[in-house]
């Protein structure tokens, strides 16, 4: 009996192994084809940023030697203002939006105050309304407030427009926590701010990291809104900066242009390397939004 039990899985494994080879070879070939096509632009970026302008044009698909390292300092000199500005915007966006959403999520989820449900509905309804119409009115509003070409035109509109969904997520998460957790601290005489800082924020940490990654991705990729609101060259974000660079004289030095493109990926590469799992979750975190 015992030997039978032992033998069975081995026999199963052997059977699986025999079938595994013909089956998955086709699948692997297919996956590699898809991946090659998907990663080809990345490969081109990588090899082109180490080439002279002439080599980029004449030997496009293969790496050329010796590698040209001088492209990177040249590119950095041009894009570093955009890079640092976007870094600053992304940090502000992420910190402020996260703080606002978590505070509100906690208040709507576990606290009581007059008009709580009414005010929540006001946020919640926004999740279902299309935002396509907002571009021009938002621009007009920003112009009236005199915040064009400042960090606030990015941050305030990001806070205002992206948080309904996140407040909803945080509220749902807070509601799922047992009431006693909060009550016991309150009975101990802890203030709401203290409860928030020592209990709620740590509890929500996984959600907060998802939200932060999602916001960093958004800030780094956003294009149309910064394009119309940040018209001064020194205030531009990385995407807008690269867009104008590709149209300008610098765009003629292809090696430098390519290394500039590659450098723009740097922060997200760092996020990807240090938090691969969170990064991949962050990619789909906004998907539940309707």
């Amino acid at each position, binding site marked *: 009996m015992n030997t039978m039990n032992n033998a069975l899985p081995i026999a199963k494994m052997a059977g699986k192994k025999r079938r595994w080879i013909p089956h998955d070879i086709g699948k692997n070939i297919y996956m590699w084809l898809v991946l090659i096509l998907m990663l080809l632009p990345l490969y081109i970026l990588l090899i082109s940023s180490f080439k002279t302008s002439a080599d980029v044009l004449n030997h496009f698909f293969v790496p050329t030697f010796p590698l040209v390292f001088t492209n990177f300092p040249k590119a950095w000199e041009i894009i570093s203002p955009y890079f640092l500005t976007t870094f600053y915007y992304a940090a502000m966006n992420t910190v402020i939006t996260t703080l606002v959403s978590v505070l509100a999520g906690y*208040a709507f989820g576990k606290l009581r105050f007059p008009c709580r449900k009414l005010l929540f509905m006001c946020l919640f309804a926004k999740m279902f309304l299309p935002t396509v119409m907002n571009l021009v009115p938002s621009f007009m509003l920003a112009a009236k407030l005199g915040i064009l070409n400042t960090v606030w035109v990015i941050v305030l509109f990001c806070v205002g427009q992206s*948080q309904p969904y996140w407040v909803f997520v945080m509220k749902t998460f807070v509601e799922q926590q047992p009431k006693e957790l909060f009550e016991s601290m309150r009975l101990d005489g802890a203030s*709401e701010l203290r409860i928030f800082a020592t209990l709620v924020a740590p509890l929500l940490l996984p959600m907060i990291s998802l939200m932060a990654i999602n916001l960093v991705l958004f800030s780094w990729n956003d294009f149309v809104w910064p394009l119309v609101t940040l018209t001064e060259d020194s205030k531009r974000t990385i995407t807008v900066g690269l*867009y104008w660079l590709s149209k300008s004289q610098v765009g003629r030095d292809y090696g430098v242009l390519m290394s500039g493109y590659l450098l723009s990926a740097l922060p997200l590469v760092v996020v990807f390397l240090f938090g691969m799992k969170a990064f991949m979750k962050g*990619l789909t975190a906004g998907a539940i939004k309707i």
Partner: protein
Amino acid sequence: MKKKAEGVKLHNSGRNLPAALKKIGLKIRNYVLDTEEVLPGQKIRWKRVFGLSALVAFLFALPAIVTNIIFDWIPMFDGIIKAFCYVDSRGNSYFVGLQNFKNVFSDPILYKSIGNMLFFFVFNLLLMFPTIICTVVMFRMKSAKVQYVYRVLLCLPMVVPSLVFTLLWIFVFGYNFGVLTDLAERLFGHRYNFLGDPKLIKWTILFTGIPWVTSNNVLIYIGGLNGISESVWDAAKMDGVGPIRKFFSLELPLIVGQFKLVLIGVLGASITSYSTQLLYYNAAVHDSIMTPGLLMYYKAFPLTTVPSDYGYSYALGLILFVVSLFLSLLTLKFVKSSD
């Protein structure tokens, strides 16, 4: 006898009317004051309703509410109202009734742009399938480790801003000289102007999506497939279901929820997003790249020294808003009814 009973009923409901009204009033009061735990007849603890902790809670929620109202709700209402106004470059507006809408609908480019939008709409729907096929192939791999490696590799391109890929494609095709254009000339003996030919531009944009696999959506679908219990696959194996039948009778129905989610996104984006078209835009292909969204953008933020036509832009924005709202309600209904 029957009449009498009805009379009694009527009488009863008449007597209960004030009570029913009171009940509704109580509900409203509890809803507004957030005092749901207070039973009828019990006294409200006003100290709790308007006390310090309620104030603190309100202050916690305040930044979210205020920013949402100012930077999301107000622009929306502004968009609705100003669609019926003439708006000058300083932001002053004068009521003109339906004039903006007349301008929009009498503009021949609008109809061309709707045609272009429908082109992208149809192909974006069709091009949802390569992603599903890729996910299913990946999911069917036996080794979880190999699967994970593929998943990570598929997400790798996401580290580069998508705009950079578009700029790279524009460079590869090139306006005057481009590597792919040269290659195509050597292969077909004819020099195609991929970016500047009105007949080709839409196909060029579609082509740059190759292999039409969206990393985000792969992750969404794979999440759905992973959520299904192992026994389903075992049962299918026992029954000897072939790979193609398995796809149509098992995998596709099982991820139908995720499919609808992605579908709503694709539908919305096809109608309202225009950043890709904006990047590929050049005057030579004006008529065949313009979509209603891009038209709205260019009327407010023109390329050349043509003055902005904000009224036009506001009206077209409102039309797009209504259309996409209608469509998302329709999809929501369709999602609900078939669930």
